[in-house]
């Protein structure tokens, strides 16, 4: 009788533990992926390279915030640099999928022509066009 009861209890315990493991496995699967994709990543004093239409672009900032898989936000003093130009500005948003970067803060650009200062910019990298907004001064090299 006691043996029978012991066996029953052991079986019950095995079933409960198995069920508990199944629950843990299930609960670890779904929420983990959701949390990962929604998670914001922030890196300080960041620099990296991005491959785009205009070739390799080096980016850097005081603080990089990953908004989602396609969007990053360069917070504080930031720069974009490639073979065509060097853009030095503040608070630059970059859409990696659309290859667009922009900022509403004052910006300085150095290129083969000279030094350009503007109140903001929108860089359509896929179209090889940069729009400088507000008052613009472009001092040309001698």
């Amino acid at each position, binding site marked *: 009788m006691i043996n029978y009861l012991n066996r029953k209890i052991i079986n019950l315990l095995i079933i409960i533990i198995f069920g508990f493991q199944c629950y843990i496995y299930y609960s670890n699967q779904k929420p983990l992926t959701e949390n990962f994709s929604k998670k914001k990543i922030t890196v300080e004093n960041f620099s990296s390279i991005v491959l785009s239409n205009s070739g390799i672009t080096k980016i850097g900032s005081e603080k990089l915030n990953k908004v989602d898989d396609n969007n990053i936000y360069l917070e504080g003093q930031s720069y974009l640099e490639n073979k065509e130009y060097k853009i030095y500005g503040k608070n630059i948003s970059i859409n990696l999928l659309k290859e667009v970067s922009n900022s509403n803060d004052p910006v300085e650009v150095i290129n083969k022509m000279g030094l350009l200062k503007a109140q903001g910019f929108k860089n359509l990298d896929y179209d090889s066009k940069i729009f400088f907004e507000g008052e*613009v001064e472009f001092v040309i090299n001698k």
Partner: protein
Amino acid sequence: MIVKYFLKVRWSLLLINKLIYFIIYLFFFSNLNAESYVRAGESLIWDSENKNYTANGDVEFKNDRFIAFADKMIANYVVEENEEVFTIIELFDNVVIEFKDELFKGNYAIYTRNDNIIKLTGEVSIESPTRILTGNELIADIDNNKRILNSANNESTVEVLLENNAND
């Protein structure tokens, strides 16, 4: 001994004085050879594929030859020895070009760097200290100091050669 010391100090002061003059001269000289620039009141678009810059709103362009003002400017460039150089500059609406003591006005202007010629069209005028001439087309040959002013009626074409020391 005192005389020798006095002369030494005097010589040093003279040297410092000359050095200061030289620095001041360099400062003014660099300002005289003022920089070339483009200023725009509203926006500037850099199209690196088509190799041009488009400036909008109270545009001011200065190079070593003239200063130009207009509502809009499109400047084409080429890359020479790893540097971008303007080749053709187009100015649109309310165009005013200051060249030495002359003032060219028109609705549209195009400047080509290769031959240093400015061509203005629309209601054009050329103002100098001594005269004002108006027409529909003005061709200013900067290198040869020659101006050709055409009116709407081709028969009344006026050609004006401006001498550097012209007083009339």
